[in-house]
Every structure is written in structure tokens, then in C-alpha cells.
């Protein structure tokens, strides 16, 4: 078994390295003709990047690289010649364009300026402005973190498709998730976990959340039809001059508005529990009780998703990385157990997990994480 795992991990790494070796020279060649040069250090291709694949979106293979223009200014290069990757880049572009045109949107998002869109040698390459920020999100004072996150979450709530006309206009471009879709996806998580040798305790926790999601489906439906970012975490936005820029438009979809809240709060469980508490208190003090229920349900849904994600990674990894992924599965199961009781996971569990994670992370992954959030 160990040998098989090792082979799987080595194969995944080797595939990733082969992929980089074949793509990078060609991308470099194409963009150089347009006056851009790839920088030497490329943080987004290091560490565990080779394992990353979203669970609930059809993420394609693509590279996110840094380059400089002729004036020495940093730019971001997204490049792919993989079919799904191309669809993702085109989709992201369509989302960005449509979002600025919607006549029922109360707020608009800021996005980095697109500098070039290249279709060459079977590649699609999108070059955008790099948003320089003075400090990462988590290094900012808690007041600023709260204010920026609430503003960004409210901006997503500012767009809701409620009429048949609204739904028609967005369905061509955006994914539209109903409460039944969330339940179907969650059934998929549960089935995967049952089939992949996760402990009975974890399966039972995910089953309990499934029961709760089913019983309270109306709350999920009630807050549906909103624009929501399925990967709303600090590494997907940057702040410059008090303006928040959204970097990843491909993760935007219409669905329960707490999907982005839930992703953000689950992330903050690990990285900043004070902000998590502040945001939950905000909802409890300012929003309807049904809304608090909906938020809780989406947290359960997203915890099921992240447990499934890491359980999949366990199967594709070996050695320290395999142990780390197993620890991750257990950690998020602990978070799920607490959330099922509508309490927060103990700080001791978080600290123990963080210590263990930092010991098990590779040097390259540690480098990739620097300043990421």
C-alpha cells in the first residue's frame, strides 16, 4: 500500500514537472514577443500546487505566473492549452464582462485591468495588471479586515437574480445552483467518503450534516439566487488604496449567498478566529434568524466539501504529504463536529493542527504560502 502511495505521489509530481517543462518555455516565447518576461521566482507553481483541483467546479489545468513588462512592472499571466483550462479562462472573462453589465446589480466589483488576451500556438494567455498591496490581508488590523471582508461579502449580496428575465440573462454564463443542487453535491461528498476508507466517525458527522441540510433545505432555497464567490478567501483578492480587487472571477456563480460567507468563515477558523467571531456576531445582530440558519447550513456543506477534497488528496499523496492530508481530514472533521453543535472548534485543536501542518509541509510549500493570505 505504502509503495503504491509513493508511486502515486511521485507520478503526480513527475507529471506536474513534465507539464511545467513543456509549457513554460512556450509561454515564455509567446509573451516575450509581446514585451513580457517571466520572472525567475514563480510561487504559484511550487509546493502542493500539483494537487490542487477544485471539488465542485470543473477547474482545468492552467498556470498562474508572474512576469514583468518592458518598464519592469509586474504583471500576472494566466496561461493554458488544456481544453478545460481554456474554457475556464474564457468563462472567467465572460463572467467579468457580464458582471459589469448586469442591470440588476447594486454593486460592482473592481478587477485588475486586462493588458493582453493572446490566442497563439494553441494557448490562451491572459495578462492582467498585478495589484501591489502594502500588506497581506491577514497582516492588516482586525478593524480593516472586518470592514473589507464585510464590504466584499455585501457587494456579492448586491446582485440577486429574482425574475425569470434575470435568470435567463445570467444562466448563459454563470452556474446557477439551487438548494437541490447543493443537496446532490453533498450526497456526492458522502458517497465518496463512504467509499474511500474514511473513519466511521467522520462519515457519521457528514451524514448528520446531510440530514440537517435535507431537513432545512428551505433556508438554503430562501437565500438562493445571489451572486456568490465559491472561493472567497484572501488569496483571491488584493487590496490597494482602500479598494478591494477580485482576482478570480471564474469562481463566481449564482446560488445561496452564504456559500462565499461559509468559505470565508471556515478559512478564518484556521487563520483568524477573531474575525470569524466578529462576522458571525454581525450576522446574529443584524440579520434575520433564517439568515443565520442558512449561513450555518452552508458552513456544513462547505466543510463536507473540504473534507472530501482532502480525502481525495490522501489517495494521491505519500509520505509526509499523505500524513498531512490525513491530519487535514481529521482537523476539518473536528471543525464540522463543532459546527454541528453551533459552537466553534477549540483553539487547542487549531493550534495542534497548525503545529503539525507546519512540521509536515515541504520547504517549497512553505515558500508558496509566504504572503499568500
Amino acid at each position: 500500500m505504502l509503495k503504491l502511495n509513493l508511486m502515486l505521489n511521485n507520478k503526480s509530481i513527475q507529471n506536474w514537472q513534465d507539464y511545467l517543462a513543456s509549457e513554460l518555455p512556450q509561454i515564455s516565447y509567446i509573451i516575450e514577443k509581446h514585451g513580457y518576461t517571466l520572472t525567475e521566482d514563480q510561487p504559484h507553481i511550487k509546493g502542493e500546487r500539483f494537487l490542487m483541483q477544485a471539488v465542485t467546479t470543473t477547474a482545468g489545468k492552467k498556470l498562474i505566473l508572474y512576469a514583468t513588462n518592458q518598464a519592469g512592472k509586474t504583471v500576472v499571466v494566466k496561461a493554458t492549452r488544456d481544453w478545460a483550462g481554456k474554457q475556464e479562462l474564457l468563462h472567467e472573462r465572460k463572467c467579468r464582462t457580464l458582471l459589469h453589465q448586469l442591470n440588476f446589480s447594486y454593486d460592482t466589483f473592481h478587477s485588475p485591468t486586462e493588458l493582453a488576451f493572446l490566442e497563439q500556438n494553441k494557448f490562451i494567455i491572459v495578462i492582467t495588471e498585478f495589484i501591489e498591496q502594502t500588506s497581506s490581508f491577514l497582516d492588516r488590523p482586525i478593524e480593516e479586515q472586518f470592514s473589507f471582508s464585510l464590504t466584499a461579502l455585501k457587494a456579492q449580496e448586491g446582485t440577486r437574480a429574482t425574475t425569470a428575465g434575470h435568470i435567463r440573462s445570467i444562466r448563459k454564463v454563470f452556474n446557477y445552483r439551487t438548494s437541490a443542487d447543493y443537496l446532490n453535491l453533498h450526497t456526492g461528498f458522502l458517497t465518496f467518503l463512504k467509499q474511500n476508507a474514511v473513519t466511521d466517525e467522520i462519515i457519521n458527522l457528514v451524514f448528520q450534516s446531510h440530514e440537517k441540510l435535507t431537513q432545512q433545505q428551505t433556508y438554503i432555497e430562501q437565500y438562493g439566487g445571489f451572486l456568490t464567490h465559491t472561493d472567497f478567501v484572501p488569496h483571491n483578492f488584493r487590496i490597494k488604496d482602500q479598494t478591494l480587487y477580485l482576482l478570480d472571477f471564474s469562481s463566481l456563480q449564482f446560488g445561496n449567498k452564504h456559500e462565499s460567507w461559509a468559505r470565508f468563515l471556515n478559512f478564518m477558523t484556521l487563520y483568524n478566529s477573531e474575525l470569524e467571531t466578529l462576522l458571525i456576531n454581525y450576522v446574529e445582530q443584524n440579520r434575520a434568524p433564517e439568515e443565520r440558519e442558512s449561513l450555518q447550513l452552508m458552513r456544513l456543506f462547505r466543510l463536507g466539501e473540504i473534507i472530501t477534497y482532502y480525502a481525495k488528496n490522501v489517495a494521491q499523496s505519500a509520505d509526509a504529504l499523505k500524513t498531512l492530508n490525513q491530519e487535514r481530514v481529521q482537523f476539518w472533521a473536528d471543525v464540522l463536529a463543532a459546527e454541528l453543535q453551533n459552537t466553534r472548534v477549540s483553539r487547542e485543536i487549531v493550534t495542534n493542527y497548525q503545529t503539525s501542518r507546519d512540521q509536515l509541509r515541504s520547504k517549497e510549500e512553505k515558500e508558496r504560502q509566504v504572503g499568500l493570505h
Partner: protein
Amino acid sequence: MRITVITPLFPPDIGAPAPYVKTLLQKLNSHQVHAIIYGHLPESVPNITYTTIDKRSSKFVVLLKAIWEIYHAGKNCDLIIINNGLSTELPTWLVSYFIRTPILLCLSDQLAKQASEFGLYKQVHQLLKNRITGTIELPTDEKLFLPIEKLPFASIDDEMNVQQNTWWIEHVAKIESYVK
């Protein structure tokens, strides 16, 4: 007093009219209030009954259902409060020929108000205005009537709280004065 409130927007919908109408229903809860809400699954308000008109249906179905609901709720109440918007104003105008209940038009949606200055909506708006008992326009400063958020790093603005309470007392009194 039996009051029917018709609104094109209600939480979880967004936009200022939605939280305004929800607060209005809370403030009117000493009366027997029925709300006709354009929406799918509105947030609940204690002691208020409501019917919904699903906006995801075709415009024709929405119109027919609205006429039916407004007629049946409106004929047996003491006051109809209609929040502005073409989708609410058109059926209310049609129903107004068949009921004698006073109708109060509340201009709670600034965007709809702007839209009522043009095209078909302008015609409907004018026709409805000829049939109603009165019009109430909300202040442009939404802080005066929308719920004040409780934020962790901000102090409570007591002065604004007092201003809001005063505004709402006067607003509800003004609404009640339209009942014959």
C-alpha cells in the same frame, strides 16, 4: 385596522425598499396586516400574514396573480399601501376600479421612481395617481429610516436612534391618517 401592504421587494431581496417594508410591517404590527410580497420565500415578520407572487413566473402570470391577490385582500381592508414599481402599480390601478378601499402610494424605491418618468411606466404611474388617496415619499437619506447596523468597532449613534424613532412614529401616524 386592517391594512394590506403590497411590495415588489422584500428581504432577502436587496435594495433599500426591501428592509424599509420589513421595518414598516414590524411597526404596523398593532394592526391586522396582510402583505402581498413579490418573491419566493420572504423572511418572516411576527404577527403578519402574507401571500407571495413568484417573480420567476412569466410576466403575464405574475400580473394575473397580482390582480387576484390585490383584489381579494384589498376589498376587505381599511387601507392598501402600495410600494412603487411597475409590477405593483399596474395591477393596483386595474383593481382600483373594482374596490373602494383607500390606496396609499409609497415611493419607497428611488430607482423605480426615476423609471416612472418614462414610457409605459409613466402612463401607468399617472393613471394610478388619479385613483389613489395619497402619496408618501421617503427621504432620500436612507439612514433616517433603514435599520442601523450594529458594527463591532463603531459606537452606537444615540442621536440617530432618536431621529429614527421620531421619524417612524410620524410616518406610521401619517399612514394611519389615510384611513377613512
